[in-house]
C-alpha cells in the first residue's frame, strides 16, 4: 500500500537530510506506529506520502501509484484515498460536527443525498451519536479529535495518516481515540500513526517503525515504543 524505496529528503537551507535513504513497505490493512524523537523525520514521512513534499531521491509508491509520475492535477485524487488526522484537530470553528464532516465530501463534489446518508453513519462510528449539531468549541479535546477522525474516514480512504493524534489529549481519553483508530483499521484501512506516546504503542502491540535522524533504526512487528525499556 505504501512503499518507500531508498527515499532521501533534504529541505532547502538544511544540510542534514530529514529522511536518509529510507526503505519501508506497509501492506494493505496494516497498523503501523511511526516512532522517534522530534525531528527524526516522522512528519516528513507522512508529508511525502501525501505528496506535499517531493523526495530528493528514491521512489515512493502509494496505493499502486509512483508519486513522482503523478501529475499535479491528479494529486487531489490521491489525497481522496488518504485520510489525515492531526494533533491540532483542524476543525472549522464556524461549522458544527455534521457540517465539518460533510465539508470533506462537499468539496470533492459528492451528491447531497450521499452525504446525508454517510455522515451520520461515520459520526456514529467514532462515537459521537447525538452530538452532530454541537459546535467544535462545545466539545472536549477527545471529542474534537473524533470529529477529525470522522472527517478523515468519511470518504472511506484506503490509508489513514495520523500525526500525533493523541498529542493534545489526556491518557484516559487517548484510549478511546485508539479504539476508534483500531475500528477504522478493522474495516481494512491501512493506518499509519506517528506518535510519542509510549504507553499507547506498548498497549497496542502493533508494528513499530522507529526513526532516528532520518534513518530507520528499528522495524518490528508487534513491537513496543522503546527496546531499552
Amino acid at each position, binding site marked *: 500500500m505504501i512503499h518507500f524505496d531508498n527515499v532521501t529528503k533534504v529541505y532547502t537551507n538544511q544540510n542534514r537530510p530529514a529522511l536518509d535513504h529510507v526503505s519501508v513497505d506497509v501492506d494493505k490493512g496494516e497498523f503501523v506506529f511511526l516512532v522517534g524523537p522530534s525531528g527524526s523525520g516522522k512528519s516528513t514521512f507522512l508529508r511525502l506520502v501525501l505528496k506535499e513534499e517531493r523526495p530528493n531521491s528514491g521512489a515512493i509508491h502509494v496505493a499502486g501509484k509512483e508519486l513522482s509520475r503523478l501529475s499535479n*492535477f491528479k494529486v487531489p485524487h490521491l489525497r481522496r484515498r488518504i485520510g489525515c488526522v492531526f494533533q491540532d484537530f483542524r476543525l*472549522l470553528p464556524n461549522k458544527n460536527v455534521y457540517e465539518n464532516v460533510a*465539508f470533506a465530501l462537499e468539496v470533492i*463534489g459528492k451528491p447531497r443525498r450521499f452525504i446525508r446518508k454517510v455522515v451520520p453513519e461515520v459520526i456514529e462510528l467514532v462515537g459521537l451519536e447525538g452530538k452532530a449539531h454541537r459546535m467544535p468549541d462545545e466539545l472536549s479535546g477527545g471529542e474534537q479529535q473524533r470529529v477529525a477522525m470522522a*472527517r478523515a474516514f468519511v*470518504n472511506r480512504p484506503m490509508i489513514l495518516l495520523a500525526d500525533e493524534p493523541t498529542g493534545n489529549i489526556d491518557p484516559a481519553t487517548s484510549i478511546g481515540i485508539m479504539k476508534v483508530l483500531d475500528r477504522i483499521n478493522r474495516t481494512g484501512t491501512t493506518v499509519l500513526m506517528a506518535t510519542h506516546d509510549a504507553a499507547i504503542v506498548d498497549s497496542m502491540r502493533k508494528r513499530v517503525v522507529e526513526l532516528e535522524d532520518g534513518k530507520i533504526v528499528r522495524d518490528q512487528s508487534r513491537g513496543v515504543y522503546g527496546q531499552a525499556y
Partner: protein
Amino acid sequence: MRANFIFSEVWIGLRRNLTMTIAVIVTVAVGMALLGIGLMINSQVSSMTGYWVDKVELSVFLCKKNDVFPACKDKPPLTDDQKAALKQTIQSMPEVERVDFEDQNQAYENFKAQQGNSLLLSVIQPGDLSESFRVKLKNPDNATAVSESIQGQTGVANIVNQRQILDTYFGFLSKLRNMALGVAILMVFAATLLIGNTVRLSAYNRRRETGIMRLVGASNIYIQLPFVMEGVIAGLIGGVFAAVLLIVTKVLLFEGIQSYMAVPLGWNTVAGVITFTMAVGVVICVLASFITLRRYLRV
C-alpha cells in the same frame, strides 16, 4: 461541481471583504467607463473622418476690388476671360477632379445659410465676398502640392484647405480620446492591484478552509473557483456601473454635441463598446485573481 457550495463561499468572501470589494467595483467602473468613452470618441472620429473626407475641397479665393490680401495688392480683379483661363489651368492639373466657380451671389447665399440671422449678415453685402473656385481633388492628401501650384497664379487671393479646419477639430477629439484611454489604463492598473490585494486577504481569511480542502483532495478548480468568482462578480458589478456611465455619457454628451458632428453615434456602437468594456473588466479580474492565487494559495 456543486454551484450552491461555490456561491455560498463566494458570498461569504465578498461580505468579509466588503470595503475592498467596493473599492474594486468603483475602480473597475471608472476605468471601464473611461475606456468606453475613449472607444466611443474613437468610433465617432473615424465615422466623421469617413464622412467628411469625401466632401473636403480646396477653396481658391480670387481677388476682388481693393482686396487687402498681399497677393492682390495694386492689381485689378480678373476679367471673365482670365477667370476662364485660370479655371482651365486648374482643371488641367492631374490631381484635380472637378472645379466649380462660385460667384459673389452664390457665396452670399451660402453665407446666409450658414449664419442664419446673425448681426454679421446684416452688414455683409454680396460685393464684400470673394469669388472662388471650389476645387475637388482626386485624393485629398495631395492638397498641399496642388494649393502651392495654384497660389502662384495671378488673381488668386488665398487658398483655404478645408481639411486643415477639420484636422484641428479632429486633433482636439484625438487628444480627448488619448486622455480618456491614458486614465483608463491607470485605473485598470489600480484595479489589478486592488483585486490582487482582495484575493490575498480572502485567501488569508479562508486559509483553514482551503487547507482542509487540500487535505481531503478537493480539486484545484474547486479550491480556486470561489476566489476567482469573487473577482469576476466584483468585475461584473463594476462593468454594470460602467455601462450606466457610458449610457449617461452618450445621452448627455454625445447627443448634446450631435448637431456639430453630422454623423450621430449610434446605439449599436454604444452596445458594442459596453460589451467590450465588460469583457475587458471581467478578463482583467480573472487574470488578477489567478496570478495572485498562484502566489498566495498553495495547491
